[in-house]
């Protein structure tokens, strides 16, 4: 179904589909970070680190684009590792603010230093993916359908890796660090090491997403990774719910559909922050576990009706 999807859409909707797929990777990697209980406001900047690094490597040093993307993700990992030393002296609200400050400093450095970051206008004319002829199928970088298939493969592979991580010993330890941090510490788990691990993995995938974006739209600038974008990612995660793997994906898809289809058709794109803000408040007030909870309840209810037994609202 995901393979057939682009053929039912208009050109601009195909472009949206590419962005949506990249955003799924961003929001899923964000959730991986929140597993340890820390909410960051610097995640989109880590995405930007991957984008800038990959763009500079490809444009300045002529690195082959797919290699540059992987190196971009690697550089995001290194930057996250470096940031983890100051940031994990903080917890909770302080971490939130600290991660914002660290991210904003990086963003302002991009803005301030024209060489090599291009200043406020950023980097333009970033090398696209090279065209590849597979014989049975031709990959063309400027065709959204081609790029969509490429991104779909990369994102699916990344999601599988994150899924495996979450369901391994490491993932279970993330949960332990979140819910029972003193107990975990007492059991000989280095809480800080696992928090760092979560941050580093999440930032690596965010960096990869940034690189995918940069080589598609061909330009990066500091405003692409500002706090507004971060708030959108936060909204996807919270509206979708972060208890399950699929929650943030639902949130991201649902809100993109609302934004691109409903608002665009009505010509109310200006109202995007209004709708997002109201949804965010509404979710926190009335559906604190997010859409995933609504899905789970509906599913249970449907299953209950199907088997002829009443399941009391799934509570």
């Amino acid at each position, binding site marked *: 179904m995901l393979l057939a999807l682009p053929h039912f859409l208009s050109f601009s909707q195909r472009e949206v589909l590419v962005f949506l797929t990249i955003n799924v990777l961003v929001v899923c990697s964000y959730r991986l970070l929140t597993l340890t209980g820390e909410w960051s406001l610097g995640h989109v900047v880590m995405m930007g680190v991957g984008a800038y690094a990959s763009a500079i490597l490809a444009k300045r040093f002529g690195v082959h684009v797919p290699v540059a993307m992987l190196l971009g993700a690697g550089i995001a990992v290194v930057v996250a590792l470096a940031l983890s030393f100051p940031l994990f002296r903080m917890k909770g609200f*302080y971490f939130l603010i600290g991660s914002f400050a660290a991210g904003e400093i990086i963003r302002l450095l991009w803005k301030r230093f024209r060489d090599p970051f291009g200043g406020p206008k950023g980097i333009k004319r970033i090398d696209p993916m090279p065209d590849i002829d597979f014989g049975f199928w031709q990959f063309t970088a400027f065709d959204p359908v081609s790029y969509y298939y490429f991104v779909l493969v990369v994102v699916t592979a990344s999601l599988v890796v994150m899924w495996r991580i979450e369901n391994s010993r490491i993932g279970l330890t993330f949960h332990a660090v979140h819910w029972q941090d003193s107990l975990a510490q007492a059991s000989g788990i280095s809480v800080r090491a696992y928090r760092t691990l979560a941050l580093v993995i999440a930032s690596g995938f965010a960096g990869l997403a940034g690189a995918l974006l940069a080589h598609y739209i061909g330009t990066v600038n500091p405003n692409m990774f500002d706090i507004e974008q971060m708030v959108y990612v936060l909204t996807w995660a919270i509206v979708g719910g972060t208890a399950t793997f699929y929650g943030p994906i639902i949130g991201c898809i649902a809100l993109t559909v609302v934004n691109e289809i409903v608002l665009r058709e009505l010509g109310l794109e200006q109202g995007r*922050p209004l709708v997002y803000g109201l949804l965010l408040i509404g979710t926190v007030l009335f559906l604190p576990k997010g859409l995933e909870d609504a899905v789970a309840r509906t599913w249970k209810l449907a299953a209950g009706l199907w088997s002829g037994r009443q399941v009391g609202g799934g509570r």
Partner: protein
Amino acid sequence: MFELLAQTGLNALYAAAYLSLVAVGLVLIFGVMGIINFAHGELFMIGAYVVVALYSDLQMPFVLVAAIGLVFVGCIGILMEFTMFRPLRDNPLGGLVASIGFLMVLQALVALGFGVRMEHVPPFTQEVIVLSDRVRLPVHRLIVIVSSATLLAALWLFLKRTKFGWALRASAQDPEAAALQGISLRTTSLIAMFIGGALAGIAGSLTAPLISVTPTMGHSVIVAAFIVIIVGGIGSLEGAVLAAIVYAFVHTGVTTYIDGVIADIVGLSLMLAVLIVRPTGIFGARDRA
């Protein structure tokens, strides 16, 4: 050299004046309710747009408009308390997230109502006090400085001398003990939200003619206010005022001698350094988060 220093000092004093109004409200709300209000910069912005609507467009007297800004934004604070913070009393993260949602709503409403372009507000008075050749103080800036000082003094008297002030400080110190003494946390939260909103609102109203008014102007204000309350020690009102002065001098100084972006980086680094070395802040003693 001395003249440039004096001029920077005056500029910093003006920045410190409106910044401390915003930061003190933020601290008050955090102290009483344990919630970080991310929408506080937008309350400042609404205060400025009250001036755009009533003073530049309808030509009402500035003093009246500033008073309306104070009350109106204070009432928005009360609205936030009723609709979001009260239902989310036991969920500080939820309150924080809801305030981010509220920030987006306010920004979008103002953008839809007034457009996203910069608004030009004529100053209350064009007069400039010429202290020397290169040291000048526009009277409007002096008005901001004096009114801020007056408002802060009034707040100080309210908190230290009145029954409500005592109740407010008690519930900031220990909400449970305060509740046991018969202090209604609902009432103190309402008062805190009103005062916090009102201070941010009048700060926005007073400075509207002096800064660029756009729907996103709250962003730089809230970042500066966060730096101030972290450096000042979260939960300490005196610390916030002191830190606002320190921050304004550093930021204005760096902006004058190097450039604005570097000044922002220096400010954020200052906050990060305080968070690393002493998360309770330089002047604060208590940790509630």
